[in-house]
């Protein structure tokens, strides 16, 4: 099959335009209609609903979706595994375990940080070192050992989550279940700004190395004899993908499928060149998640369907479709 050829600038420009458009339009979608005149006149409550709730939530969706899709694209290239996601290497399960423990023990705030956030970051950080340590043999790091260590530790964390969950009372248990679905909520501005800064800097670092991920996608020996420093590339890639995934999971819970579906869909359209795939994954992943969240809050208003459930609704059938239509792409 011939790959449809559209120039790279057109794809990146188009994706960026959609991203901007989503940021402008999606805040106006929600359970309560906003009055234009009041918004224009900066009058409450419409103005503050728009600014503090809807806009902050849309921005969180845009950057969280972007971070997850980019981390997915990165791990798919780095591990040469078409089914790799930001969660494959265990970091987000580690973050979930930390968050679940924080909920189970009612740690609302610890040292001024929201308990769930702190727990998730600590969990992710610990898992990062465990996986890295388990994957390094004789000072060597390979993507297959990283993948195996990640999957093994992933399942241990998942078992621990079930254990903690089964030992908690009914109200914590509900909070844990809800958190594990994943979803977007308005966050306070300083937290949002910090998150956006982390995502932007990490994503820029990852995308800048796109040629290196292209080489690694072919093979480690291939990359090494074309000037890449494989061990350094694998550890920085793992670290960067983990920062993206952990920071996101800490704020949104483990939202599934964005990290798998977006790079996959685009790889079929654009081909596997990460110089094009990565920026487009970031931009369109953001649009997808923010869009799913807007659908979730509009479709059964005033009830809300968490974005994590909507992405899974789209992701599951997509995966089946992919299997049926020769998912080798």
């Amino acid at each position, binding site marked *: 099959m011939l790959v449809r050829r559209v120039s790279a600038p057109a794809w990146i420009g188009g994706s960026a335009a959609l991203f901007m458009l989503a940021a402008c339009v999606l805040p106006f979608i929600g359970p309560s209609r906003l009055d234009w005149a009041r918004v224009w006149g900066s009058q409450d409550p419409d103005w503050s609903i728009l600014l503090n709730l809807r806009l902050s939530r849309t921005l969180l969706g845009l950057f969280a979706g972007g971070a997850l899709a980019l981390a997915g694209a990165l791990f798919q290239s780095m591990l040469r595994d078409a089914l790799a996601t930001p969660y494959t290497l265990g970091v987000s399960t580690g973050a979930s375990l930390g968050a679940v423990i924080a909920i189970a023990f009612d740690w609302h705030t610890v040292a001024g940080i929201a308990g769930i956030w702190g727990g998730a970051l600590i969990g992710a950080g610990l898992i990062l070192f465990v996986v890295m340590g388990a994957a390094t043999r004789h000072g060597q790091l390979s993507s297959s050992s990283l993948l195996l260590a990640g999957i093994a530790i992933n399942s241990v964390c998942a078992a621990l989550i079930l254990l903690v969950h089964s030992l908690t009372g009914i109200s914590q248990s509900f909070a844990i279940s809800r958190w594990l679905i994943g979803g977007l909520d308005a966050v306070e501005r300083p937290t949002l700004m910090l998150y956006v800064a982390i995502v932007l800097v990490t994503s820029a670092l990852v995308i800048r190395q*796109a040629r290196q991920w292209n080489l690694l996608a072919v093979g480690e020996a291939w990359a090494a004899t074309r*000037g*890449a420093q494989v061990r350094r590339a694998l550890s920085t890639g793992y670290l960067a993908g983990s920062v993206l995934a952990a920071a996101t999971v800490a704020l949104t819970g483990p939202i599934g499928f964005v990290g798998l579906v977006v790079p996959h869909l685009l790889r079929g359209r654009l*081909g*596997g060149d990460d110089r094009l795939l990565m920026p487009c994954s970031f931009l369109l992943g953001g649009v997808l998640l923010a869009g799913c969240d807007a659908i979730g809050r509009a479709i059964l208003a005033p009830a809300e369907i968490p974005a994590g459930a909507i992405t899974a609704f789209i992701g599951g059938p997509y995966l089946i479709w992919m299997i049926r239509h020769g998912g080798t792409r």
Partner: protein
Amino acid sequence: MSVPTLRVRQVGWRPPAGPDVLQNVSIDVRPNEFVAIMGRNGAGKSTLLDVIAGLRQPTHGGVTLAGRPLDEWHPTERARVLAHLPQMLRADLSMRAEALVLMGRYPHAARWFESDEDLRIAHEVMERCECLEFRQRTLSTLSGGERQRVYLAACLAQQASALLLDEPATFLDVDQQLQCFSVVRAEADRGAACMAVTHDVNLALTFCTRLVVLADRGIAKDVSVEAALDDPSWLRAFSSRVSIERGPSGTWVRYQ
């Protein structure tokens, strides 16, 4: 005689756990040479190539590339001088053939997208490897042999002066095997130092300038192709059922 491009000195390699795979291997490969690395399965052919490519750290001895020890080269600089084609490469890659060949240009410039000159070089090598026609195809849709030609083109696009190929002709049909080896021979004739692992005695005798036979963890035989034809005793390192026949119409390898 010209200065060797590759100088392999008393190289030994042992896996972290297990017996030696290579012991005391020394070879010089000069410009214009095309060396066939031959030997039975498990004789250490790929290991030797990996050591020369810098993919494995030798446990003894060392390799110099263009007069400089291999580990003193910066990886990017080294990739401009030395190209390596691994034996097994990914088949399910969703990248266009042309994009893959352009990877050979990565070490030559730090810029994000390749220049028109890079594209011209890529097309020129794809033409030589007879794969230009599928430059817009996705690699996962190509057959094994077609993909192998694309990978070979990607190696040539590096324009390296040392070319290391691990079984480059294995998946190719007979015509493409000949094409592959004559392309590499042409690179040697232009001044590259080439090494290829192969099991095909015929291809080696037809296109290579020198044969290196590995057996018992070391070099069992290191001869020019002319000498190999005159004294075929080296064939016993592979099998007792192969012989070389010479007649008025040429030379052929006979299997029994």
